[in-house]
């Protein structure tokens, strides 16, 4: 449900086995997901589906669910980035020193808000469209990791590097764009990856407010007493979230500036 992305932290913990860890992530994870999906597919093929089951479990339905879930997640992540990255930059500027702790505290408390409460509240009070409400809710939910990634990323930039850059006559903006941001990228990306996984994963809850996704298969399967549909929905939801994390992990490795 909530994701704390691994990346840098774990490669430190794993130490000498970084390569092995990377291989396990790159190959092991998708292999396991593919195996589970194929097994499920073969199992479903071998079963006689009744009319209700075949109405829920069919290629078109599954495709729609996946697209809905991905769409919600991508929009939410994009919205989060647009808000959280500039906010994170602003909060690390010296002039924001006073408000920064307050906003961090609010964001931390916000982390404790249950996704489902936030989602239902937005749906009932603000937006009566399942998928739009889900996008807004997920975006709010994902702000904290991106905000934190941006801030920590910027704060850990070596002060000596910034001082040297200023001393050479780079303006504040160009220090930010050419030095601070590139150096913050690895940690920022970890935050973005967390946000992406978080939204893909939480997007399933949109099903409760008619937003579709694999959650839809789970809920209608459960409502109509069809465990097979529940299982298919669960596997679909899980596979999507795991693969989102997988893609995020690869992107993190590829986008890291050389030399770091």
């Amino acid at each position, binding site marked *: 449900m909530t994701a704390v992305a691994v990346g840098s932290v774990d490669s430190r913990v794993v130490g000498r086995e970084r390569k092995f860890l990377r291989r396990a992530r790159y190959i092991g994870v998708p292999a396991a997901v593919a195996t589970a999906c194929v097994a499920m597919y073969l199992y479903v093929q071998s079963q006689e589906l009744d009319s209700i089951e075949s109405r829920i479990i069919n290629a078109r339905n599954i495709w729609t669910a996946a697209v809905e879930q991905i769409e919600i997640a991508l929009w939410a992540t994009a919205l989060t980035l647009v808000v959280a990255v500039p906010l994170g930059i602003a909060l690390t500027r010296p002039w924001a020193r006073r408000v920064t702790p307050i906003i961090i505290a609010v964001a931390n408390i916000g982390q404790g808000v249950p996704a489902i409460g936030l989602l239902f509240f937005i749906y009932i009070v603000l937006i009566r469209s399942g998928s739009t409400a889900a996008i807004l809710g997920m975006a709010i939910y994902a702000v904290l990791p991106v905000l934190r990634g941006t801030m920590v990323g910027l704060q850990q930039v070596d002060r000596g590097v910034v001082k*040297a850059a200023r001393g050479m006559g780079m303006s504040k903006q160009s220090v930010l764009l050419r030095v601070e941001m590139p150096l913050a990228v690895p940690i920022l990306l970890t935050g973005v990856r967390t946000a992406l996984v978080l939204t893909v994963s939480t997007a399933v809850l949109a099903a409760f407010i008619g937003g579709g996704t694999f959650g839809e298969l789970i809920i209608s399967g459960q409502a109509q007493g069809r465990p097979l549909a529940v299982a298919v929905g669960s596997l679909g939801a899980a596979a999507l979230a795991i693969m989102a994390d997988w893609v995020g992990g690869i992107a993190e490795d590829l986008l890291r500036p050389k030399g770091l």
Partner: protein
Amino acid sequence: MTTSVEPMIRLDKLTKHYPGQEAPAVDGVDLAVPEGEIVILVGPSGCGKTTTLEMINRLIEPSSGRIFLEGEDVTHVNADQLRRRMGYVIQQIGLFPHETIAQNIATVPRMLGWDDKRVNNRVDELLHLVGLDPGRYRNRYPKEMSGGQRQRVGVARAMAADPPVMLMDEPFGATDPITRERLQNEFLRIQEDIRKTIVFVTHDIDEAIKMGDRIAILAEGSRIAQYDTPETILTSPASGFVEQFLGSGILLKRLNLSRVEDVHVAIGEWPTIGPETTAEQARQQLQQSGRTHLLLLDGQRRPDRWIAEIDLNPDRDMSQAGTRVQACVDSRATLNDALQEMLLNANGVAAVVDRDGAYAGTLDLETIIAEIREMRAKALDNGSGVVVGDDT
């Protein structure tokens, strides 16, 4: 705008008063830095020397007072533009880890809008200047270099746009003693050619004496306790504070003042032979000279071995005879360095080499002792109350 009397940098009652602090960090500093000289700001930690330096390029904005660069009041000009006219080297170096060495060095030229060709040529030129092979290093990342190499790149980056002024804040402070000495010597060699105006902060008085054309000894609040040439400061400290700061071993410190090239380097006092000389010729030369050893030079005229008469055996390869030359000093080395080398050598002589490592003469203990006597005599003439030499 530059006139012969106007110093390159002039600080006029420069003050930094941080809000909430009672005493100013820098209290009304007046300082003139003449063109082409290295001026050292040295003082105990917390005396405000770094703050003073950082006010010159306005990384720290002064509370009051004025800064003149080449006669122009730059206290209120655009700070970014100002900084592009001054090279800046700090102890942490601060290379951009995500950029290659070439990109790092090109930072200021790019900001100044140089074209690619000019930038590339300049990068190669600078890498050569600091003794790094451009072909090998330009595309490396900082983490792929040693600390000493990174420091060289830091210096090259600061010189990239050929600024008339360089500000250096403990530039060699984070390196080990051997690397530091090498970097210092290299930097002095470079400075001989480029003649920049340099303000250099250090807390190490030995570094100050070695590097400085002038030294400003700073007390708390960056108040200047004495501002003069190293010679004068060592021979006539202006106050008890300065004396205390100079510490013990003033005599040895003075040896840091004189360079090998400044004293009489004897040429021809010791017989030399080349790789082609036969043992018989060598023996004749040695006997004529009346010395105990002769010096074998290799094909590039670099000192190779000290050879005594008993080592001269016609059947033996000359390049294996005698003992290897341990002590070789650069002509820019200080007498202190030379003394140490000499003590390593059996016959009490240091071979002096030029820039390319070729033999330039010899230096012996007597020369150094004579130099010390001369210094003492000068100090006594100056009427300085400091007794030098007797305690060391």
